[in-house]
């Protein structure tokens, strides 16, 4: 268990979600007669969900810090329309449009962060207000009409890695990307084994590492194969690439840096964090600002994909992002959650959506099923916690790695006699 835990950086709930994800994919692959794992479908899945997953990255940090952000859909829509309008009216190139969008996101985030962190209004209220405000701004700026964006900008939301190098029958960049990822997986695993030795601990059995590397590389190579062998002109989608880069950056920041530690500390126990020297207001401000920047980015990607910005972009996105985060193992009370877990949670929802669509199940049933999945996933976790038991997946996995021994009761007698003789 420990080794998988270290791989995915989370609790048993996340293994559960990984298995659920794999099971779902297999289920739909069989039920749709092989229509799920096709290059086109996978590309659609990534293109159509990357913006929700990007929101989930920001949202999990907000939720870990003990807040919530309901405004992300409206912020995305506002950023989208502003970018579309400035590119049309001021003739800005696409990259300047992106810069304008990100700056606007930062500004909006600063506004919301200010009210939450420095005025002390609950984020629920501030972002509920923001949801109305920025939806209104979107419709004001766009005059409730749709504004198209230039061709180059569409690359951001619907582009693919270009064809370069010799004609191999595969998309070369995608193949390289896949191989690089495999290399990284192997390197990181080796490094982790070395770390165990460095701190004088017993590394997990060798076969655990080999199985882990094998499984992960197989998954990556299969995905690479799918993405590299699609129709001519398609390959790994650009939004997927942006998402991947963001996941790596944010997973790193949240788990390996001081800022990341501080976000968890504030969510876990705000007062204790403050008395430990964490400036909790700054943390609140940063997570909300970051969320709005990512929302602006998600809005731009969506606009790129749908070729135009409209008055109803991003409606309901906040709920999808929040659902992804909670399915991915975050706690409503804060302090718990991971970036990778939220992405898995988001993918579960995405695969569910996609699979049900392929099966021709209507929007009504899809909504009902998604609602139940969210409820059951969290209920399962709450139930397990209240019983003090491992989850079912936890039990299945318990032969992996070392099990924690129960705490040895304090043998005060020995301690005292020891101290007495020492002093």
């Amino acid at each position, binding site marked *: 268990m420990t080794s998988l835990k270290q791989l995915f950086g989370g609790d048993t709930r996340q293994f559960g979600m990984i298995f659920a994800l794999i099971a779902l994919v297999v289920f739909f692959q069989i039920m749709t007669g092989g229509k799920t794992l096709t290059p086109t479908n996978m590309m659609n899945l990534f293109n159509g969900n990357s913006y929700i997953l990007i929101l989930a990255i920001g949202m999990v940090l907000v939720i870990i810090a003990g807040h919530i952000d309901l405004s992300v859909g409206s912020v995305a829509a506002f950023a989208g329309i502003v970018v579309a309008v400035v590119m049309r009216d001021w003739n800005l190139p696409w990259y300047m449009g992106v810069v304008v969008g990100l700056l606007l996101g930062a500004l909006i985030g600063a506004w919301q962060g200010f009210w939450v962190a420095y005025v002390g209004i609950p984020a629920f209220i501030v972002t509920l207000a923001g949801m109305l405000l920025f939806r209104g701004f979107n419709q004001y700026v766009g005059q409730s009409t749709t504004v198209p964006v230039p061709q180059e900008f569409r690359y951001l939301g619907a582009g693919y890695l270009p064809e370069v190098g010799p004609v191999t029958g595969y998309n070369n960049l995608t193949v390289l990307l896949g191989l690089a990822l495999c290399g990284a997986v192997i390197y990181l695993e080796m490094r982790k084994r070395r770390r165990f030795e460095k701190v004088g601990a017993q590394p997990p059995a060798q076969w655990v590492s080999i199985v882990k590397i094998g499984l992960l590389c197989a998954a990556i190579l299969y995905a690479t194969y799918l993405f590299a062998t699609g129709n001519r002109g398609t390959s790994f989608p650009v939004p997927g690439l942006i998402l991947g880069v963001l996941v790596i950056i944010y997973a790193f920041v949240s788990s390996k840096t001081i800022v990341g530690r501080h976000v968890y500390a504030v969510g876990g126990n705000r007062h204790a964090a403050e008395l430990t020297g964490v400036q909790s207001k700054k943390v609140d401000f940063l997570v909300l600002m970051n969320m709005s920047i990512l929302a602006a980015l998600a809005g731009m990607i969506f606009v790129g994909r749908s070729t135009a910005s409209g008055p109803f972009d991003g409606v309901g996105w906040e709920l999808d992002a929040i659902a992804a985060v909670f399915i991915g193992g975050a706690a409503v009370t804060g302090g718990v959650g991971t970036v990778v877990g939220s992405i898995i949670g988001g993918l579960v929802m995405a695969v569910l959506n996609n699979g049900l669509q392929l099966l021709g199940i209507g929007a009504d049933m899809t909504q009902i099923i998604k609602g139940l999945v969210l409820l059951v996933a969290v209920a399962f976790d709450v139930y397990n916690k209240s019983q003090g038991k491992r989850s079912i997946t936890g039990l299945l996995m318990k032969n992996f790695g070392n099990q924690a021994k129960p705490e040895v*009761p304090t043998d005060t007698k020995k301690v005292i006699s020891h*101290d007495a003789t020492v002093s």
Partner: protein
Amino acid sequence: MDNHTILEMQSITKEFPGVKALDNVSLSVTAGEIHAICGENGAGKSTLMKVLSGVYPHGTYNGRIVFQGQEVQFKDIRSSEAAGIVIIHQELALIPELSIAENIFLGNEPTRFGVIDWDRVNASTQELLARVGLNEDPITKIKDIGVGKQQLVEIAKALSKSVKLLILDEPTAALNESDSQHLLDLMSGLRSKGISCIMISHKLNEIEQIADSITIIRDGKAIETLHVKNDGVDEDRIIRGMVGRSLESRFPEHTPDIGEVFFEVRNWTVAHPRVADRLVCKNASFTVKRGEVVGFAGLMGAGRTELARSIFGRSYGNFKSGQIFKDGKEIHLRNVPQAIDHGLAYVTEDRKSLGLNLLDDIKSTTVAANLKKITNGLVVDEDQEFLVADEYRRTLRTKTPSVNEGVSKLSGGNQQKVVLAKWMFTDPDLLILDEPTRGIDVGAKFEIYGIIQRLANQGKGVIVISSELPELLGLSDRIYTIFEGAITGELKRGDADQENLMKLMTASRKTA
């Protein structure tokens, strides 16, 4: 006193996965007595009480419970309360936003035609409050009265349920001396009215004072039951039972090596965070020397914690005026990070809500206050983190299988060691320890005292705030007394005793 037995717990065994929490424990309580249960943290006292009150329902343990001559099988707390057994937990279960009366009758409201009969609620509350000697309006909100009075409300609530056996878990842990005394008097009052009490407490002097009999539990086994009057029990006798041998000294031997004054606070004045014209610190001035343990004595609410926290980066109250000098230079500590950078450390009195992130594990808690030290570039070095935490685990003898464990799994004493490790890792010059041994058993206390003395020997200044005067007297080289936010006295080791400290703690400067 009549001698019939009200409660008989026979051969109770309770197992948790991997741990036998109670091993064949028997307990017998006579009607109208105060029966103390002593034992270290983790000895099984609370587990035994949870079995008795139905928190662990019948069937989850082995053994029989006979109450008032009948075998009882409680399903939950409700069924044990219906039988007349009421447990009052250490963490009070009152709702701050509701009134005293509402809290007392919560879940048990008298109704008339289906509507709560408030006249009856308030009248009965008045009566109950009179019985516990609490002079408060029944419509006062719980949040507006102190912890001592809240404890009395809990007892009034128990009385409203026609209690026959009252269980008090650490009833005086959070109370000051006078509130504790009031509570103990109230317990003897209940005893004379035929209500039996079981009392779990670490405060041996109180047990010695009030209990009729004492059952000592060690490692899940009932070691012995002592009758206070017949057996001539004193504190040392109880300690001997708890740890299995007597302690020659409750404080480690220590020769102080005191240097120059290096830390000084002058005319420190701080206002209450919400009530602007109420001062919680009034013109307080004090000094700390290198290698010195300085005690701060004061009743609860006297302003000890407020003083400490306002110095520690203004983390409490509104700063009004005052100066801090360190090594002769004035320093300005406007927030906690600045205080840490200037070599201050503050260990809070309230470990669970202010000291620890209970979701966190030991290793990341240990390094939390000084992450910079183990950060290379951007990356927190997790190997360093593990090694540092493991080093502290060994030197402080924290009982845990590994530093990867969550802090919530540790006992109070071991949690406190982790908190101390966290601050030791910042390598502070001045440690402020607020109630460093609250809720910690005797053995761990001894260890914490040892750590404090070692820190002083390294040339650090240590401020110890404590409600337990024997602890302050045993530990401190010098003691300041605080009353209503002002420092009312300063006594050197040797000059101080419980009596003159208490006088200074309760009188203002003028009458002292």
